[in-house]
């Protein structure tokens, strides 16, 4: 029995290896995100929670991907790992050809700083700090001079239509404006990917439409890769590809209707 099961396991990993080599050949070089058999296992007391159970995923440059799924499906866990905020328990992950699973915490911090921008549901702006300074933050940790930080942050705020609000504090801005500051902060460092976690979850319909329009424009005009995590289908509608996560696995992965309008 034991021998049999071991054979089965090894043959399974052979399958994995085959799949890996196939996908390597297919899209490793041009993929921005490439992960193989990602697992994330938490321990809550004695209970083992398998948040991710072998996710294989490849996302190319310039894609606009919506990751959907019910709460508890593992989509947030997946985003945390893809966003280099967390390590997978098992599996491999390459971001822009760099091995993330084997990187040190400081290397992850640098990856987030240079290649990733985050937009959160609750904006997560630093309180009592001006819009401009919030937008400067990634450049601050990149060690740029204050002058350069200001110039680039100002340009980023301009791109999201917040001219004249540079010196407003978050409390002086509406929800939609705060989220636009957050987008400016995410794109100020010219990252390869922008992750948006329920970006319209705390906004009214009008503001939501504005935010989605900005994201779509960034994808269309600047060819920025955008990954939106959401459970709202109208948010996902703007994306070119829809990935549904269920029980820690990719349940569904297909282009959305508008795919034809997006080049590449």
């Amino acid at each position, binding site marked *: 029995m034991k021998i049999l099961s071991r054979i089965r396991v090894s043959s399974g990993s052979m399958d994995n290896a085959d799949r890996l080599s196939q996908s390597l050949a297919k899209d490793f070089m041009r993929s921005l995100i490439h992960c193989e058999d990602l697992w994330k296992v938490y321990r809550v007391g004695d209970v083992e929670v398998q948040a991710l159970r072998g996710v294989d995923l490849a996302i190319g440059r310039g894609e606009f991907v919506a990751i959907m799924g019910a709460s508890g499906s593992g989509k947030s866990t997946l985003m945390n790992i893809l966003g280099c905020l*967390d390590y997978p328990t098992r599996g491999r992950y390459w971001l822009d050809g760099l091995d993330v699973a084997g990187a040190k915490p400081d290397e992850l*911090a640098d990856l*987030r*700083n240079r290649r990733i921008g985050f937009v959160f549901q609750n904006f997560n702006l*630093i309180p009592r700090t001006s819009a401009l300074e919030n937008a400067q933050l990634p450049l601050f*940790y990149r*060690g740029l001079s*204050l002058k350069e930080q200001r110039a680039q942050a100002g340009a980023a705020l301009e791109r999201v239509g917040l001219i004249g609000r540079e010196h407003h504090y978050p409390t002086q801005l509406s929800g939609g404006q705060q989220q636009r500051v957050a987008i400016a902060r995410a794109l100020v460092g010219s990252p390869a990917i922008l992750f948006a976690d329920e970006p319209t979850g705390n906004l009214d319909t009008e503001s939501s439409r504005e935010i989605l329009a900005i994201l779509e424009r960034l994808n269309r005009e600047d060819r920025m890769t955008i990954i939106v995590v959401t459970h709202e289908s109208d948010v996902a509608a703007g994306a070119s590809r829809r990935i549904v996560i269920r029980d820690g696995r990719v349940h569904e992965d297909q282009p959305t209707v508008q795919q034809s309008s997006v080049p590449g």
Partner: protein
Amino acid sequence: MPAFVLLTIMTALRVLSRNRMRAGLTMLGIVIGVAAVIAMVSIGQGARAAVRAQVASMGTNVIIVLPGATTVGGVRGGQGGAVTLTIADGLDLKKRIPLLTDTGWARRDVLQLVNANRNWNGPVTGISPSYLTIRDWLFTSGGPFTQFDLDSAARVAIIGQTTVENLYDPGEEPVGSTIRLGNVPFRVIGVLAPKGQSAQGADQDDIVFIPFSTAERKVFGTHFLGSVGALFASTERSDDLIEAVEEIRAVLRMRHRLQPEQADDFTIRTQVDIGKIQEGTSQTLTVMLFAVASVSLLVGGIGIMNILLVSVTERTREIGVRMAVGARRKHILMQFLIEAVTLSLVGGLIGIVIGVVGARMTTIVAGWPTIISLDAIATAFSFSVGIGLFFGLYPANKAARLNPIEALRYE
């Protein structure tokens, strides 16, 4: 990196200015601690300098030999109770010990002093000619005894400032006048420059000096001719004092025919010993006050740590955001360390100002001498930075070790 540090300091200052009340209260412990240290050290050093000045007023490199206690059947008399030192001892010491530049002797008694219709009770001291030089007495008017005065047991006196104040009207010239010591008239030939308090707190200027021979024969009377109240000796250099003391002890033991098992029948003191006792007292005080100040600094440091821990908790989400946009652990660590050091440094600077003002006020109000030392200020300054670093390290480390995901999700 310098740009980062500068901006972090600016951020820290802004964070602190957001919560002025809280920052102020947090700094209070450091402020009090540093102010206490500065004030204490200033007062302590002032006191020590005053002691040193008193000790120096005894004369430089002086050795004092006092007659010892008598022991009769195990009952010991007080110091000076025995008549064991003589002029001959003094002369012999000078002859036998080349280290000694001079020796002198003195005997004192308290007599009524009378000038016209004023009188005063004060100590009268019969002295050898060398006494005045050994003890570094200077004159404001007149001059010392002559050898002739000594040989002839002349009735001439040299008086101190306190005596002048008590026997003469202001502006009256004592030199040339005649005063009575007991019932014997004396001509005043000199007035001494003031010395102030002795290390023991006695008024050194309440004094009348007369020639030793005069005192012995015409004023005090004596059972043993040539016995003295104290012997004085001086050395060229203060480094020689210890050796000189040992040689004096050896010579006196030999002259007094003391057997090895017998104790000295005299006591030798130097101004170094006396100064040490006094400085020891003020040092004990300084150490105690320093301990109190250290406790205050410690409490201040714990206050900073406490507030920073609160701050780290309050700003968990902010820390998460900073990590998400690429802050490394060391960036977060430095941010909170700089906040801690800023708190303790500003507190320290305020404390230094209060301490200096406090020391000055002590001098003005209480009249205590204070010396504001740059050392103390530098020490307090670096101490407050050190406290900020030490007590900031734990909260800063706690912040830096936060998991970005949990920090972002923190409510």
